[in-house]
């Protein structure tokens, strides 16, 4: 699951993610990070489910870091999309596939939000919400 983390001025200098990784042994992957003295925002991938995931989320909350689930990582506008495939092979993690009839399919779990596909789309049909 992908989470958007919001740090405040008081906890931005704490090694929150490292503490949680050491404690839970869940290999949290940082996808995006914007950190300043006044706070920070990160997007992380938490490869866990069920109890383990609840524990990770609980630990973020306890550390004062808001952790909201990102439901949709990328949006493909099917009205605009021409099913060309220009976004498919440039995806560095093969999260975008073409079905047998060439329709585009995004595997949100694999997506690392690198945004290469957003620029690769010739008709601007992909955006990150």
């Amino acid at each position: 699951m992908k989470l958007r983390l919001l740090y405040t001025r008081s906890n931005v200098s704490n090694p929150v993610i490292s503490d949680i990784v050491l404690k839970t042994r869940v290999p949290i992957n940082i996808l995006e990070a914007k950190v300043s003295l006044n706070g920070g925002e990160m997007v992380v991938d938490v490869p866990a489910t069920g109890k383990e995931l609840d524990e990770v989320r609980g630990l973020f909350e306890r550390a004062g870091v808001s952790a909201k689930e990102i439901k949709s990582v990328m949006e493909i506008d099917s009205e605009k999309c021409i099913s060309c495939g220009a976004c498919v092979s440039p995806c560095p993690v093969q999260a975008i596939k073409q079905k047998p009839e060439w329709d585009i399919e995004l595997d949100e779990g694999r997506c690392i939000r690198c945004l290469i596909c957003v620029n690769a789309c010739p008709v601007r049909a992909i955006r990150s919400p």
Partner: protein
Amino acid sequence: MKHVGTETLRTYEQINERVKKGDAVVVTADEFVAQVQNCGIETVAKEVDVVTTGTFGAMCSSGAFLNFGHSEPPIKMFKCWLNDVPAYKGLAAVDAYVGATAMSESEGFDYGGGHVIEDLVSRKEVELRAEAYGTDCYPRKAIETTIVLDDLNQAVLVNPRNAYEHYNAATNSTDRILYTYMGTLLPNHGNVTYSGAGQLSPLYKDKNFETIGIGTRIFLGGGIGYVIGEGTQHSPQNEFGTLMVRGNLKQMKPKYLRGATYYRYGTSLYVGVGIPIPIINLRVAGSAALPDNQIFTNILDYGVPSRSRPAVKKVSYADLKLGKVVINGRSVPTSPLSSFKYAKEIAETLKRWIQGGLFFLSRPAELLPNQSEFKPLEVRGHELRVKDIMTVKVTTARPNHDVRMIASLIVRNGVDHVPIVNGDSRLVGIVTSWDLARALAEGKSTLEEVMTTKVITARENESGDVVARRLTQHNISGMPVVDDANKVIGIVTTDDLAKLLRKWKE
């Protein structure tokens, strides 16, 4: 070839008679390929009257002639813009040509001539702005208004080069991401992109040009259009045939004319083209039956910024459609840039039009050439190459040399870059004055400890433009010039380029 275009199996009149009665046998190229594989060419060729084809890809050589009508008082437009995209005005007072790759003066890459055409066909309002110098007969000097497609007297799509028979596939051997007209190419052969509709491609289905010619009626942008000649760069003997086409924009549909942007390359227009191939003889049938696994293309290395890019591998469209190919022993993902989904839809739409008696086939007034020379542009006059710019006397050093000694050498010789070479003067690294300053500050003793080993280099025959672009891309101020054996034969720096610019200005 003798008897090109002979109508031995059926004539155009016979086909159109059947279209009129509603009993013409029409199949798409995909269906025809499958039927021939199952039943053999002779049986199927006897049965099928027309094979429909389709392609939907970015076709940069596209645009539209527009006639705006005359304002009161009238204007002889000298410069004109549509939604801030400049249109060509070297024509009569209110005629203009808007080309797909022209870019908006305010939005640049995000909006271009292709988008203007899509917006017009979508019946959106488009801002028209024009300037003039004013004449006795055309006194007005400026105009700003909005137009919609149906206001225009004529709006005619005239595309000098469409429907490439096939196209090269692309990959990238360099260590940086490339943004090209072949889309986004990942470093180190990270992916392959390709274009063209393979076995649905119109020109492969009549590869000897026996039926397609001036006056051939076609599906164009969702409406009806015509072939008006061979396209520019038509090179049929290399299977790079192209078409020049025209059609009334007012009949077309925005679905099949889509403005496009290739990131950091420019704007274009996706055009839908479908051509009916009348099965007039067995040769035409044989061409129409060509399957994906017999249509080949080369994967070229777009990392080489040259007219002649080296071919990495020859593959068929069947290979490319599998989604991966092997390059240097590694599986590399492939994906198309043109839409197979739309290409198929176009072939199916054209099939329905003919079956429904809405579309008749036309015998061309003249067939297209099946031989044509494709010439490069020779640059006459002297053009600067690295060897003309580079400094031949290079200060070099060895990896085990002392940092302090080289620091004083840099000061004495007034240079900023010192290529590091081994015993046979082959390049192994580089240090800059900045590296040395840092080395001194950090108390390092030999060059080996501070040199950059991954050196960006130039070759003596490369053009000045290419080398200047490389310096900017890597954000460096100089690079050694090496020969085939990687021996240093010179150095080219931004100082050399600046000197050159000064000389040229004088």
